[in-house]
C-alpha cells in the first residue's frame, strides 16, 4: 500500500479538517456560552471587580450650650485610608508612607492587625495635614490601595476647658463593635464614635447615618474615580444636642482655677438641676483625640501623675468633711431631734469627752453654746458630735442612704461614681472585715456627723445636695442635656423654716467674721456656703495638705439662690481661702452675665482690697463689719494671716487700711472676654512654704 497515494492523503486530510473543526468549534461554543449566554453575569462580575463601595462618614450632630453657642462641631478634614491587600505589600506601602505621615512601627502593626481582623479598608490617619496629603497625591503610583478623602472632623471649641464634659470621638474598636451600645446593624468598622463624655452618652443621637459612594478601582487598588451609573447614598447628619452647660462659664472656671492644682468645680442651676459647668482639673484637650491621638500625647497624658484623664467632678471620691455637716443638720431637722434654736447640752470647749476618749473640735478655742445656725457658721464639731448621737448611728445611716449618699446622681454621662457611704451597720463588717465583728459603735455616728468616717462623695453629689438646700429639700438629678425632663432626684423633707435655718447657718460662714468671708463677699450677690477640709490618705499622715471644699449658693441679695457651685481643690488645705474664692468668682461670673452686668476679673472683696481701697459697695453690703469700730478703720478685714494671696501685691497692711495701694494698677473695665489680670493661686504644693504656714479652717 502506498501510504502517500492521493486517495489516502485525501482521507487523512478529511480527518485533519475534522480535528480542526472539532477543536475550534469547541472554542467557539465556549466563547458563545460565556460571551452571549452568560454575558450579564460576567458583566456584573466585572463591575463588582472594580467597583467598590466606600463609606461616606456622616457628620455628627452639633453640640450647643445653653446660649446656643457651639461646643462641638465638624470641620472638613483629610483622612488617609488603605485598602486591604496582601500583607507584605500593605506593610511596604505603610512603611513608605511613614516618610510623609507620622507612623510609628507600633502603629503600623496595629493597622495591620486591624486590617486582618476587619478584612476591609482601615484609616491610616483620620486627621492628615495638607502637606502629607499633597505628598501622597503626588506619588499616587507608589501607594497602591491608598486613597485620601475629605471627611468631617470633630472640633471642640472649649478645648481643654471642657474635655471632661464633651469627651471625644475616636474610631470604633473591635471590642466595641457589636456590643449593645454599638449594634452591628448601625455600626461598622472604621466609623467614628463617641468614646467618653457627652459624645458617648448621646452617641445614638449624635451619630448620623453613613452614606455610600461607589468608586472605580484598578487591579492594584488605585481609585480611578467615582463610578457613574449607580446612585450614591448621601450621608445623613446626626441630630444636634443642646446642653444646659454654659460654655463661657466653663471657660471662666478654667481660667480662674489654680493652674497647678487638681480639683473639680460643679455649677448647677437649682431651678431644674441643669449642669451649668462641670469642670475637672487637670484636663485634656479633646481635639487631640480626634482622628487618633498621637502616641506621644497619649503617653504624656498617661504618665502625668495628676491623671488628666480622670474626671474628678463625677468620678473623684473625696471625704466631704464639714460640707457634710449640713446633711447631718438636715437629717436632724427632718427627724425632729433638734430645732433650729436649740443648743446642745454641752458647750464646745475645743474638745469633747465621750466614750472614753476626747473628741476634738477643729478650733481648740471652742465655740461655747451654739444653736444650729451658729454651729454651722462655726462649723463646730462638738455641736455635731452631740447632734450625731441624738440621731443615732442606725438612723443616720438609714436616712443618709435614703436621701442618696450611696447612690449616683444620675447625670447624663457614661461614667459616674457612686457615693461611698455605709447604708446599714453590717456594711462596716462587710467593708472592713472582722475589726467590726461586733458591729460599729455609736462613736461612728460622731465621725459621720462631721463628715468623717467611711464617707466619700463626688463633687457633683455634694453639688446636688446643696441644690436641695437652695430649694426646698428636693433636688432634681443634674442634667447636662437640655429638655430631657427633670429626672428624679431626691427628697429631703424639710420645711421652709428648716431650710431658712440651714441657709442662715451657711450665711454665717460667708458673713463678716465667718471663715470664708473675704473670698466670697461680692458686690452684687449674696453667697452662702460651707467650707470643708477633707482628710485624705496623705494628709492624715502629714504628707500633704487636706482637700479644700467649698459648697456655695448664690443669688441676688435677699432672693432665692440662683446658682449652686461646689469647688474641690485637692490638697488645697483651706476651703475658705482656696475653694471659696473659686466658688464666689464662678457664681459672680454666671450671675453677672445672667443679669447683664459687666464682668470684672476683680470680683471678691479680697481681690478688691488686694488691688485697691475698700470698695464703697462693701460698706453698704456689710455694715455689720463696721459696727464695733469707726468706719475709717476696717483694719480687721485686712488679712489677719500671712496668706498666699497677699504675696503678689506686697501691699503693706497700713496702706491697705488707709485704702490706698501705691502703684496699684487700675481696675479693668467691663470685659466681654475677661483677661486674667489677677493671678490666682498658682503655687505648687511642694514649693510654697508660705501657704502652709497659715492656720485656720
Amino acid at each position: 500500500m502506498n501510504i502517500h497515494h492521493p486517495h489516502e492523503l485525501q482521507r487523512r486530510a478529511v480527518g485533519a479538517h475534522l480535528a480542526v473543526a472539532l477543536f475550534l468549534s469547541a472554542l467557539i461554543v465556549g466563547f458563545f456560552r460565556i460571551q452571549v449566554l452568560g454575558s450579564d453575569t460576567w458583566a456584573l462580575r466585572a463591575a463588582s471587580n472594580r467597583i467598590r463601595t466606600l463609606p461616606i462618614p456622616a457628620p455628627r450632630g452639633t453640640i450647643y450650650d445653653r446660649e446656643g453657642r457651639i461646643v462641638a462641631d465638624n470641620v472638613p478634614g483629610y483622612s488617609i485610608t488603605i485598602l486591604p491587600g496582601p500583607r507584605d505589600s500593605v506593610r511596604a506601602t505603610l512603611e513608605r508612607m511613614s516618610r510623609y505621615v507620622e507612623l510609628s512601627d507600633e502603629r503600623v502593626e496595629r493597622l495591620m492587625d486591624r486590617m486582618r481582623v476587619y478584612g476591609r479598608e482601615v484609616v491610616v490617619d483620620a486627621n492628615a495635614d495638607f502637606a502629607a496629603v499633597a505628598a501622597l497625591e503626588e506619588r499616587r503610583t507608589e501607594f497602591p490601595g491608598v486613597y485620601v478623602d475629605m471627611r468631617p472632623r470633630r472640633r471642640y471649641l472649649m478645648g481643654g476647658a471642657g474635655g471632661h464634659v464633651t469627651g471625644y470621638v475616636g474610631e470604633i474598636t473591635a471590642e466595641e463593635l457589636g456590643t449593645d451600645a454599638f449594634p452591628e446593624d448601625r455600626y461598622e468598622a472604621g466609623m467614628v464614635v463617641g468614646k467618653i463624655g457627652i459624645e458617648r452618652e448621646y452617641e445614638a443621637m449624635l451619630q448620623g447615618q453613613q452614606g455610600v459612594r461607589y468608586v472605580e478601582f484598578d487591579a492594584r487598588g488605585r481609585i480611578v474615580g467615582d463610578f457613574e451609573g449607580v446612585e450614591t447614598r448621601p450621608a445623613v447628619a446626626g441630630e444636634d444636642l443642646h446642653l444646659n452647660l454654659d460654655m463661657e462659664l466653663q471657660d471662666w472656671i478654667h481660667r480662674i482655677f489654680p493652674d497647678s492644682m487638681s480639683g473639680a468645680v460643679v455649677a448647677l442651676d437649682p431651678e431644674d438641676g441643669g449642669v451649668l459647668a462641670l469642670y475637672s482639673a487637670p484636663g485634656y484637650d479633646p481635639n487631640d483625640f480626634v482622628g487618633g491621638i498621637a502616641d506621644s500625647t497619649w503617653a504624656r497624658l498617661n504618665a502625668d501623675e495628676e491623671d488628666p484623664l480622670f474626671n474628678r467632678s463625677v468620678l473623684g471620691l473625696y471625704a466631704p468633711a464639714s460640707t457634710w455637716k449640713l446633711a447631718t443638720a438636715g437629717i436632724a431637722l427632718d427627724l425632729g431631734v433638734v430645732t433650729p434654736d436649740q443648743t446642745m447640752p454641752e458647750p464646745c470647749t475645743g474638745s469633747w469627752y465621750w466614750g472614753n476618749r476626747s473628741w476634738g473640735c477643729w478650733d481648740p478655742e471652742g465655740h461655747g453654746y451654739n444653736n444650729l445656725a451658729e454651729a454651722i457658721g462655726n462649723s463646730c464639731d462638738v455641736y455635731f458630735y452631740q447632734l450625731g448621737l441624738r440621731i443615732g448611728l442606725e438612723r443616720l445611716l438609714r436616712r443618709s442612704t435614703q436621701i442618696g449618699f450611696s447612690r449616683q446622681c444620675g447625670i447624663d454621662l457614661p461614667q459616674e461614681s457612686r457615693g461611698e457611704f455605709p447604708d446599714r451597720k453590717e456594711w462596716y463588717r462587710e467593708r472592713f472585715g472582722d475589726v467590726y465583728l461586733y458591729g460599729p459603735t455609736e462613736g461612728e455616728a460622731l465621725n459621720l456627723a462631721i463628715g468623717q468616717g467611711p464617707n466619700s462623695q463626688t463633687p457633683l453629689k455634694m453639688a446636688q445636695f446643696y441644690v436641695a438646700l437652695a430649694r426646698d429639700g428636693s433636688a432634681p438629678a443634674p442634667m447636662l442635656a437640655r429638655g430631657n425632663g427633670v429626672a428624679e432626684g431626691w427628697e429631703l423633707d424639710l420645711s421652709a423654716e428648716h431650710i431658712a435655718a440651714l441657709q442662715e447657718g451657711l450665711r454665717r460662714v460667708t458673713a463678716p467674721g465667718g471663715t470664708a468671708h473675704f473670698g466670697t463677699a461680692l458686690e452684687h450677690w449674696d453667697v452662702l456656703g460651707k467650707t470643708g477640709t477633707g482628710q485624705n490618705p496623705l494628709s492624715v499622715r502629714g504628707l500633704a495638705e487636706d482637700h479644700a471644699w467649698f459648697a456655695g449658693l448664690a443669688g441676688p441679695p435677699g432672693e432665692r439662690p440662683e446658682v449652686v457651685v461646689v469647688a474641690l481643690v485637692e490638697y488645697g488645705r483651706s476651703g475658705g481661702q482656696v475653694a471659696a474664692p473659686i466658688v464666689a468668682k464662678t457664681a459672680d461670673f454666671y450671675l453677672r452675665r445672667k443679669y447683664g452686668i459687666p464682668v470684672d476679673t476683680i470680683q471678691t472683696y479680697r481681690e478688691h482690697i488686694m488691688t485697691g481701697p475698700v470698695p464703697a459697695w462693701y460698706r453698704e453690703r456689710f455694715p455689720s463689719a463696721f459696727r464695733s469700730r469707726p468706719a475709717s478703720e476696717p483694719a480687721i478685714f485686712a488679712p489677719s494671716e500671712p496668706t498666699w494671696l497677699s504675696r503678689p501685691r506686697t501691699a503693706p497692711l497700713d496702706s491697705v487700711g488707709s485704702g490706698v495701694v501705691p502703684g496699684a494698677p487700675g481696675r479693668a473695665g467691663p470685659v466681654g472676654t475677661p483677661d486674667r489680670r489677677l493671678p490666682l493661686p498658682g503655687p505648687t504644693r511642694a514649693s510654697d512654704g508660705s501657704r502652709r504656714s497659715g492656720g485656720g479652717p
Partner: protein
Amino acid sequence: MRRILERWSLDPPLVLAVTALSMFGIAMIYSAGQVHVPNPVTEDAWIRQGLWFVLALGAFTLLARVPLLWIEWVAVPSYVVSVVLLALTLLVGEGRGTAAGVRSWIDLGFISFQPAEIAKLSTILALAHFLSQKDAALTSLRDLVPPAALVGLPLVLVMLQPDLGTAIAFVGILFAMLYWAATPVWLLLLVASPVIGLFLSYDTVVWSVYIVAVIGFLVLFRYKLYLFESVMLVLANFATASIARPLWNSLAPYQRNRILVFLDPEVDPRGAGYQVIQSKVAVGSGGFGGQGFTLGSQKRLDFLPEQHTDFIFSVVGEELGFVGTALAILAFGYVLTRLVRLAEGVGEKQPFAGLVLLGIFGAWLVHIFVNIGMTIGMVPITGIPLPFVSYGGTFLFMSWVAVAVAVRVAHERP
C-alpha cells in the same frame, strides 16, 4: 499586482491570512498597553512587535526562496543544533518579562532568543525527514519508538526549563505527523491511553470503565498488535493509574493548584484561580459586541494577567466581543485548514513536504487551542502564546519562518 503577490508569497491565501493575524496581533498588543496607569514596557510593546513583524517578513521573503532540497538537507543538522541549544539553555538560560521564572532564553548580547521555538521547527523537519523515508505505515508500537524518541528528546529538554506549554506543542507535532504518516488513529489513541488513564484515575469508577474499554479493544482487535505490546500497554495503564497519587503528591503546591483551579477556578480566587477568573470576567463582560477597541475596562484597570502575551485573547474577548473572538478563531481555522489543503496538494511525490506541513499544523493547533481555551478556563493555564497575535519576537519570527517553510515545501514541484 496579483502576480507580484503570488511570486512573493507563493501561497497568497495562507500568507495573507497570517499577515492579517499578525497585524491584528499588533493592534491588540497596542490595545493591551492602553491601561489606566501606563507601563512604559507594555505601552510600547506593539512597536517592538511591529519591528519584529517587519524582520519576520524579510526572513519570509528570503526563506521562501530556499530550495526544498536545502531544507531537507538542513533538517538533521538543525535538529542536532537545536538539541544542543536546548541543553545549553538549561545551563545559561534566562527568564524574560512575564516568563521570568523559566530558563528559556539565550542571550547573545545583541539579541536573545528562545531555542525552544527553533527546536519546534527543526524537530518538525527532522521528523518529516525520518518519516518520509518510510514507505509503509507504522502499525506497531515498536515502529513508533524511533519517532517518539526523536520528538521526546527536545520535549524533555523543554520540560526541564520548565516550559510545559511548548512541551505540549511537541506532542501535537508528533501526533499530527504520525497521523499523516498513516499511523492508525486507534494506535495513536492506545499510545495516549496511559496518559489519558492518568487523568481519569482521579475517580476509580471512571477509570475502571476506561481500562475495561482499553482491554476490550485490545482483545477484540488482538490481531493488530503483538501480544507483548498489548500486555505492555495494559501494564502501562495500570502503572500510570497507580502512580497517579504519588505523582500528585510529588507535584509542587502551585502545580497542584493549577490543576485544581482548572477544575474549579473559585477554589483559589486570589491565587492560582485569579488569572482564569479575571480572564473569564473580561471575556464575559465583552458580551456579543465587545466594549470597543482599547476600551476594555478590566484590561484598562490592570485586572487581566499577562494581557499582551499569553492572555492577549482575553483582551480580544473583552474589547471585540463574541464577534471578534469568533472571527479570530475562524481565521485561525482557515490557516489550519489551508495547511492541510497544501499538504494534501503536494501529493505522493513529496511525502517530506506534506509531513512538514502537518507538523506545523500540529504545533499551531495545540498553540491555538490551548492558548484560547485557557482564557475561558477550558484548558488548564500553561504559558503558551497565540501564534502571530501574542507579543513575543522570537515566536513571531519563528512562526513566519514556519510559514516560509510551509509555502516553500508546498509549492516546489520536483
